[in-house]
């Protein structure tokens, strides 16, 4: 084939010319790939040569003592913090370091904050409505109407997070646990490929915790879920694979049993608890 024909072949586009909104490429397995990431704040190394790979559909728990860099890692993935060096890829096509927060969100990375943040002045239903994966530009939002299929989708999620009876109440009156679920529900409305969940059971009762574990495990497989959590009992109940962070880098990785028998881990983390 002549050079000319190759260049004018219109069936294919060069990778770098493909629009950024192209689907996430997970043919090679990992959905999230962090390599040699470094971040320092005023000389303090929050993230130190971090390498992490999350597979498509995986449920991963990340544990580590306070200040291990768990939240900073989430900030980097969602575009809130820019690393000093390193690379962060979503699938094998999207370089997250070149994108801003809304772009990353619309690409399919949803984040749940440590402290539940829901829109307190809006109703539970409206909270979910805003989170829905739709056209988020100004004019489509201004002229948006509530279609029956949207309503069904919201009701479906309300069922999952057990807030159906509180549908039209302002989110401000919800209990702490209910707010956490609402926030997980909001993430589900976005139909994300990857869910980042920061301390979902902090301040929850035993019962609420069980319900949350059920919810998160039911999500895995359809979505990839990364859970950052302190509560070891909770991690044990949901985790298949656990990553231990310490001082901004990965200390150990494996099943809960492997990790909790690791001598290094016992020293820096579990040792303090015993």
């Amino acid at each position, binding site marked *: 084939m002549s050079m000319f024909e190759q260049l004018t072949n219109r069936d294919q586009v060069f990778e770098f010319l493909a629009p950024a909104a192209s689907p996430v490429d997970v043919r090679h397995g990992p959905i999230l790939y962090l390599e040699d990431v470094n971040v320092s704040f005023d000389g303090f190394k929050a993230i130190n040569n971090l390498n992490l790979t999350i597979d498509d559909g995986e449920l991963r728990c990340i544990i580590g003592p306070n200040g291990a860099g768990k939240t900073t890692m989430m900030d980097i993935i*969602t575009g*809130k913090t820019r690393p000093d060096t390193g690379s962060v890829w979503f699938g094998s096509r999207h370089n997250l370091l070149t994108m801003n*927060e*809304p772009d990353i*969100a*619309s690409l399919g990375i*949803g*984040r749940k*904050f440590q402290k539940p*943040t*829901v*829109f*307190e*002045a*809006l109703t539970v239903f*409206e909270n979910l*409505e*805003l*989170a829905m*994966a739709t056209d*988020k*530009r*100004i004019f489509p*939002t*201004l*002229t*948006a*109407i*509530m279609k*029956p299929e949207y309503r069904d989708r919201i009701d479906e999620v309300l069922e999952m997070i057990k807030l159906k009876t509180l549908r039209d109440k302002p989110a401000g*009156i919800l209990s702490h646990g209910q707010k956490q679920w609402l926030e997980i529900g*909001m993430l589900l409305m*976005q139909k994300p490929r990857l869910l980042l969940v920061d301390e979902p059971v902090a301040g929850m009762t035993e019962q609420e915790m069980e319900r949350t574990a059920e919810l998160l495990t039911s999500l895995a497989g359809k979505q990839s879920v990364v859970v950052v959590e302190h509560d070891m009992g909770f991690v044990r109940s949901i985790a298949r694979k656990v990553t231990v962070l310490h001082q901004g880098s990965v200390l150990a990785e494996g099943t809960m049993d492997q990790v909790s028998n690791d001598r290094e881990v016992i020293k820096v983390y579990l040792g303090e608890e015993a």
Partner: protein
Amino acid sequence: MASSQTWLLRPLQERSTQIFLGVLFSALIVVTFLHLFMPQDSALHVSAYTVTLLGKYLCYALLAVAVDLVWGYLGILSLGHGAFFALGGYAMGMYLMRQIGDRGTYGDPVLPDFMVFLNWDTLPWYWQGFDMAWFAFIMVLLAPGLLALVFGFLAFRSRVTGVYLSIITQALTFALMLAFFRNEMGFGGNNGLTDFRDILGFNLRTDATRLGLFIATGIALAIGYLICRGIVTSKLGRVSVACRDAEARTRFLGYRVERVQLFVFVVSAMLAGVAGALYVPQVGIINPSEFSPLFSIEIVVWVALGGRATLYGAVIGAILVNYAKTVFTGVMPDAWLFALGALFVLVTVFLPKGIAGLLQKRRKAKDDDPATGQEATA
């Protein structure tokens, strides 16, 4: 309640909008009737002076609605909305100046009096086109809109919010005031623009024109209210509230917070411009004092008194405070500012949600049957 109407017409189905528009149009009709058909010496007669005064209140009401849109629903406390109001006013003032033609003191067919006085021999480029009403009316929207666009773009892109934004809006209006005070700017310096004669061919000094302007202002307020209400009841309105209460969260949902802020801010600035444009022919003058930071703060006080994030509260606040101002400055001119301050303190302490909050409470208490009555206290 599936409503398939456009965002602009949707509010017409709401009870509060129906009541608001009903009250507004009844007031317009009653005032018109009392002005036209009551004999001059009757106690019920509304004089042309009062009609113009009411028209002025309605301009302020529209301005307050514009401020409530950005403050109440978007959480942007603009202390510079007077600037947009004044720019709209100046655009209208320039049109009215050009309408004077050769009837000015110096009789120059093109140049306004103050330019002749300053020995200018040609009309500055930015005065071109203002002899045409359509051009001037477009500028009424465009001048404040463009300023808001540029200012908002820079401020929101840099994520300036909260008290810092309030301070720069103050600086904006103050800077414009100083600029417009200068004769070299070509806007009449500290005297501003005045001695208007007619608008669209109608003599501004006749009672009929004044009544027409009053009615036009009422209609503008109704339309402005509908636009704002349409925005706040749309999904975009809920996104605005989301930006107000949890900006970072909204961003992670995939909304471009700065664009939402910019859009609403520009709409609000344009409404303020329209209010200013209707204000100028009724009071007969526009000068740089409308840019004064104090005026912009006063607008915020009207909205706070009336009740934030309700829109109709802003209207009530603007009309009540300005009525009180008219009465007070007539009776004891020196005491007005103290009275305003006292009013503000009293309302903040006893009615944190303003007058509208009081109305809502009453309605809620009436609506609640005993079974759900406990929620009314929440």
